[in-house]
């Protein structure tokens, strides 16, 4: 079986700051890392490979530096990696991103199962997984917290979380899933994996290699235009209530009554 994992390199969330003037992220000096959800996607794929055999290929669309995310992935049990990188890909929205990723996966020869994270912690749209599934004509399920391969029916049995509960679904392969962080605990990298990753040859595919029309990728292929961004200001009055629980509850009740809420 071939398992393809889509990963995105994101700035380390803990250290990232926003430039309120320019409305952009301050990326300088902030370490890049694999999107946390995608670490779980890698782990899910590697576990399935260990169980069923086959190979795990990691793919990312990003600037040349995104190669380091792929090397990190290779140290986690991924067998090979491809970087989709081209000036023309810059500024992609979710639509253009899925076009590029779909072309990359096709060039790889397709996949039995594609794994994505539920969402990227910077873009946060959670659209790339479903969009990619639609584009590749794959059955899919999002927000997966459990997963099991059913050999007899060639299905993935998955537990899909939603606000009030969960569904148990069976989806026929080839399929795509987007995973939650609770699905597994990502393993620590291995030394042998790191040594292998350091030497690995990671091909870089551009628009030409993928046979993509440059007007359909990157900014020019993106119907979304980010006009402006702003940092929300928290200007509401705030007050810390003092005292023990009883006192705090009394004060809170009084405040709510005063405000006419109760």
């Amino acid at each position, binding site marked *: 079986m071939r398992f393809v994992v889509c990963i995105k390199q994101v700035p380390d969330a803990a250290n990232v700051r926003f430039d309120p003037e320019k409305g952009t992220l301050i990326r300088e000096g902030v370490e890049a890392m694999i999107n946390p959800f995608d670490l779980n996607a890698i782990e899910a794929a590697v576990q399935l490979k260990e169980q069923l055999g086959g190979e795990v290929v990691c793919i990312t669309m990003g600037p040349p530096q995104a190669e380091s995310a792929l090397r990190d992935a290779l140290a986690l049990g991924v067998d090979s990696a491809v970087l989709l990188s081209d000036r023309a890909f810059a500024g992609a929205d979710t639509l253009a991103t899925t076009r590029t990723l779909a072309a990359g996966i096709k060039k790889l020869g397709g996949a039995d199962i594609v794994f994505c994270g539920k969402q990227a912690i910077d873009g946060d749209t959670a659209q790339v997984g479903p969009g990619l599934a639609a584009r590749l004509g794959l059955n899919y399920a999002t927000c997966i917290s459990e997963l099991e391969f059913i050999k007899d029916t060639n299905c993935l049995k998955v537990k899909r979380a939603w606000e009030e509960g969960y569904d148990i679904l069976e989806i026929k392969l080839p399929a795509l899933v987007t995973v939650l962080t609770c699905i597994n605990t990502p*393993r*620590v*990298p*291995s*030394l*042998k*994996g*790191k*040594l292998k990753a*350091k030497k690995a040859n990671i091909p870089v595919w551009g628009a030409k290699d993928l046979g993509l029309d440059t007007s359909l990728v990157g900014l020019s292929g993106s119907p979304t235009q980010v006009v402006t961004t702003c940092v929300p200001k928290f200007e509401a009055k705030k007050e810390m209530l003092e005292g023990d629980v009883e006192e705090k509850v009394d004060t809170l009740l009084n405040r709510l009554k005063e405000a006419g809420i109760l």
Partner: protein
Amino acid sequence: MGKVNYFLTEEQQMIVDLARQIAEEKIVPVRAELDEKEEFPWDIMKDLAQADLFGLYIPEEYGGLGGGCFENCLALEQLAWGCIAVTTTYAASALGGYPILLFGNDEQKSKYLPDIASGKKLAAFGLTEANAGSDAGAIQTTAVEDGDYWVLNGTKQWITNGGEAEIYTIIALTDKHKGPRGASAFIVEKSDPGFSFGKKERKMGLRASATRELIFNDCRIPKDRLLGRRGQGFIIAMKTLDLARPGIGAIGVGLAQAALDEAVKYAKERIQFGQPIMSFQAIQHMLADMATQIEAARALVYSVARTIDAGEKDIAKLAAMAKLFATDMAMKVTTDAVQILGGYGYMKDYPVEKMMRDAKILQIYEGTNQIQRNVIGQALNKEYTIKKK
């Protein structure tokens, strides 16, 4: 910030980074609980196995990474920064593996080293007995030949990983009257008949590490479990300890570094007399001494480990120096860290009280620091006698 350049290769730096990552992500979050519950750190052992760290010092042909004493020290230092009870569990597996690596024949190496290297099985080393601590020559456990078997009788005491490990290297008397040539080394497997374990010891520190008695009651093991030659037991034990002692030094360095990190962080935040206690010169001087001693110990441990890897054979004195200096240092630095945190340092809410409790073992096991001084003293005596001639 100026950091001493120890000229690590890219691979060595990788080992440091990986061990540190495991310490931060897997060890630090659970160390207090493991300590409190005296719980054996199986989950972390699995992580260390997954990371290939059990095979650092084992040749590639046996599934290891082909590194040496230095690579092992680098990993031990970073893991010890997280918790030395966990690190001792890991290190004791190497202590059990060294005799096989150093004195095993091809068959023994192929049978046991791959499982130790992959972390699939833990190993342990059994020398100490109730009446034989520093005086290892006083051991009473015997091994008697019986046809195609050796039959072991006796009790080993305070064996790290006892009951948890699968592979044990045991020193037992084979010819009592032959003195230093009277003992031999054996490989005993957990499932061997007549082999059982005493209760788990309750300890002041190092509480996540399992320390148990090994009880041999007509324990029959096949002939081919003899390591090296008959009569080589004490030599095997000494060579094993020589190779392992720089690692204990490295554990001291990592532990002391962790204590310093906590102490500086605290000193910058704790306000007394209207200012951070860091601004008091008395505190600064303590921290300065701690940092300086740590760096000196690190430099010594690294140099000794590299000397060993470069092929030096006469290493007893050097290994003893690395163990002695770095572990005395760790005791002092962890004690001072508690002092800097004051009453808070004495409370379980902060990690330094555990560090201080844990540090004490480093001056005791793998040869007390008095015994290290004996080793160094005897070596000096010998060196200067030779020079005079």
